[in-house]
């Protein structure tokens, strides 16, 4: 899922500027699960903004709403008619949700309340780790299900490097060496020979290097009959 974390309250207050009436919009999907922008976090942040603005001497009215998914038109469309009454809209969705709101409702100013951080999973309660960089050309099939693109600091396709020490990465001793994990997994699965093959340079044009990406599935598109 998409992992995000809330911006500091001071930064959010600065973003809202002199707005007197604001709407905080949560998202019921990824950011709810990673406890950054769901209904509960919307309630806490809205309360914090109400209290802080009152203490700062210019009380702001802060309403709350959470939609199922801010990244799909059908879920954000019901908000449309109500946004006109607000000076600012603060989205607690990922960057996709913030952009969807701005794209769908160009007359309203929708601001980001979160920093979208990575694609990952909760390693344990309160700890999230990156697992995927959406590179567009998955190689998990040859690395035993451990991604060196997302989890190796150097994104090596043929590892480990000389900085792998006692199973940890030289960049951060708290980070496991992805190539150590890949090797251990290959040993366990009896597939070490597969790792001895040198992998050619990666085709990064399928990742961000090829510019913004788009998938078109003609079989799914709704084409009007002539």
């Amino acid at each position, binding site marked *: 899922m998409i992992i995000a974390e809330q911006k*500091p*309250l*001071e930064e959010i207050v600065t973003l809202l500027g002199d707005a007197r009436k604001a*709407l905080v919009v949560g998202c019921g999907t990824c950011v709810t699960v990673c406890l950054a922008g769901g209904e509960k976090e919307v*309630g*806490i942040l*809205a309360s*914090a903004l*109400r*209290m*802080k603005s*009152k*203490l*700062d001497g210019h*009380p702001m*009215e*802060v*309403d*709350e*709403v959470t*939609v*199922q998914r801010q990244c799909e038109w*059908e*879920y954000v469309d*019901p*908000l449309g008619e*109500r946004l006109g009454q607000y000076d600012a809209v603060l989205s607690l969705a990922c960057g996709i949700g913030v952009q969807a709101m701005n794209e769908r409702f160009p007359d309203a100013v929708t601001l980001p309340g979160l920093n979208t951080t990575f694609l990952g999973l909760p390693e344990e309660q309160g700890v999230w780790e990156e697992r995927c960089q959406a590179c567009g050309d998955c190689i998990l099939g040859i690395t035993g299900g451990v991604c060196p693109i997302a989890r190796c600091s150097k994104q090596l396709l043929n590892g480990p490097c000389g900085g792998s020490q006692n199973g940890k990465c030289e960049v951060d001793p708290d980070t496991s060496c992805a190539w150590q994990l890949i090797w251990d997994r290959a040993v366990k699965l009896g597939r070490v020979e597969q790792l001895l093959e040198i992998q050619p340079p990666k085709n990064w044009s399928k990742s961000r290097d090829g510019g913004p990406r788009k998938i078109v599935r003609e079989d799914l598109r709704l084409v009007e009959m002539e």
Partner: protein
Amino acid sequence: MAGLLDQIGLGGGRIVMVNLSSAMGAQFAEKVAEMTGKVRELGPNPLGRLESLPHKKMEVEG
């Protein structure tokens, strides 16, 4: 939560979490007395009553 209260400007010292078992009555009384003294020292909540902060919680279909 204490950090958030600090960011709001209410003062993080107004809240504390203490782990005690049901058999620790004396320690409970001690912690309550300690906290009561601390809150008295900090003075009244500068916000006053929360009812003066109007807001709406919307529901959406779907």
